[in-house]
């Protein structure tokens, strides 16, 4: 799945601006952002339900509408769409006909999502959790290779959330792909391999989940010789920032190099540790609007306005990744 410079404007409102990201085969990608950030619009553009103002969104190398039997290759759950006067089984049967799948598949997906006993109930009487499961059953109907799920956790009870997490893990284990938008960060953190964060219509982060800690964390150093250590680290290509009288902060992944430099110059370190933010911290750091009265905890050593994690490239083996112009602490 490839979204390239996608933009969608409604009148003067830019719902999505120049968004680009990829979803790699065999991964579960979390698509995160606050309400109104452009997640749903992006997913809908990807699925051909919304016409982009510019840019393109491709699935399996083609526009969704150009795929042969697209709903058999891409399963989508976009909200809890069902006619309240129709039973769950009839809802799925009505969707199964255009896909060319039979009643057996309908029974299979009902059983997969745990709604087999409720198949003859009208969906108007379903709880939010049951509607969420029905939406997932809808997505699974065509036995697709790729799932696109918009807020699949919405309304699920803890058991349902646990079930969904297990399901998605099993899905990924089969080498299949999923893109799920969510604002339940804790759940996404336990489920996804890759994270894309969108804010105000712009993609502000696109990174493997496993690298978030290293790429978006930072190293904190405390030494009575911090003033002497800082230029030595700068000479190694790092961008240390002062934190108080004896503190320095550096991009994540620099701890080993800091230790080596300090040892080489006989500087005693009182403290050296890497702070690895969790997904929630990264999310809020990326999406929280800047405030004028936000306290400045550190003083830049250079003309570097970005946060510690967005410093200039680190030496080999200590890769860093920008965080988009926000101070993290």
């Amino acid at each position, binding site marked *: 799945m490839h979204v390239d410079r996608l933009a969608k404007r409604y009148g003067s409102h830019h719902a999505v601006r120049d968004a680009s990201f990829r979803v790699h085969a065999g991964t579960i990608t979390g698509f995160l952002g606050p309400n109104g950030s452009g997640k749903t619009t992006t997913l809908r553009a990807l699925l*051909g*339900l919304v016409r982009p103002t510019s840019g393109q969104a491709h699935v399996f190398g083609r526009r969704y509408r150009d*795929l042969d039997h697209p709903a058999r290759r891409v399963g989508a759950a976009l909200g809890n*769409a069902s006619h309240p006067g*129709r039973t769950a089984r009839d809802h799925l*049967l009505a969707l199964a006909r*255009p*896909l060319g799948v039979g009643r057996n598949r309908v029974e299979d997906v009902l059983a997969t999502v745990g709604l087999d006993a409720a198949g003859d109930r009208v969906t108007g009487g379903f709880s939010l959790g049951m509607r969420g499961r029905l939406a997932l059953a*809808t997505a699974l109907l065509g036995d697709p290779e790729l799932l696109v799920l918009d807020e699949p956790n919405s309304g699920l009870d803890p058991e349902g959330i646990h079930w969904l997490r297990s399901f998605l893990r099993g899905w990924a284990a089969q080498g299949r792909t999923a893109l799920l938008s969510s604002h339940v960060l804790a759940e996404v953190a336990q489920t996804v391999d890759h994270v894309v964060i969108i804010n105000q219509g712009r993609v502000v982060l696109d990174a493997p989940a496993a690298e978030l800690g290293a790429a978006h964390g930072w190293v904190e150093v405390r030494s009575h010789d911090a003033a002497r250590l800082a230029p030595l680290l700068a000479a190694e290509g790092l961008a240390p920032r002062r934190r108080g009288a004896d503190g320095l902060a550096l991009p994540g992944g620099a701890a080993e190099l800091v230790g080596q430099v300090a040892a080489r110059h006989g500087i005693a370190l009182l403290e050296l540790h890497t702070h690895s933010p969790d997904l929630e911290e990264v999310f809020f750091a990326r999406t929280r609007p800047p405030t004028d009265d936000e306290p400045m905890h550190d003083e830049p050593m250079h003309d570097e306005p970005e946060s510690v994690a967005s410093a200039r490239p680190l030496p080999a083996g200590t890769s860093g990744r920008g965080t988009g112009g926000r101070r993290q602490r």
Partner: protein
Amino acid sequence: MSGQQAGVATLARTELFKIASSRRQAVALLAVLVLHVPPMLWGGQDADASWNGLRSRSGLFVAYAVMALGILIVAQEYRYSTAALAFLAVPGRRPVTVAQSLVVAAVGLTISSVLFAAWLTVGVLRYGAAGMHLDRPGQVVAAWAVVVVTVCSAGVLGVGVGTILRGSTAALLALGCCGALEPLLDVTRFRGPVTAPLGVLAWPTSELEMPSLVSAVCWGALALLGALLGVGRDVPS
């Protein structure tokens, strides 16, 4: 160019299944038939009145009922967001609109034909075959064809307006306003989208307001064209 997708025949069967499985719609359609039974049993007239009322009795109520059905089956798809699911399976979208139009037309054809046959039978039983012009079968077939064409056009108009406005309230309000305004001018009276079926079916069977019939067909075709052009718009979340 769009990839392979379900054909119109499959989509039409799907739409029929949706009507059948949405109990209220099925019951409402059945009610349209059942409501005709009492006047059939107890209505007493002479042969001429029975013949001249054949078109209106078998088509007038059905035309507006089918128009409302057309609006509802489309508008409910948008109301309950199932339109997006249909369009995911058929991204080209237009086949879905064509299938909906065909199904509503087929429903209209079936109901109006059943009622036409029923009223005709009642007339024959009461006034004899000659009283209901069975000795002039061309007139009977023509009367039936006028009813069916008008009813089907009204149904397609409903689908078209529902697709364009995407909401039953908006569509019913728009048609209600049309119905209120059309009688005010000679040029629109029994020629507009709402009153054209009235101009065809409310007249005695022995008379045919051809401009009304042409208007009814043209409005249906125009609404369908508008729907085919408009169905590709963004589907809101």
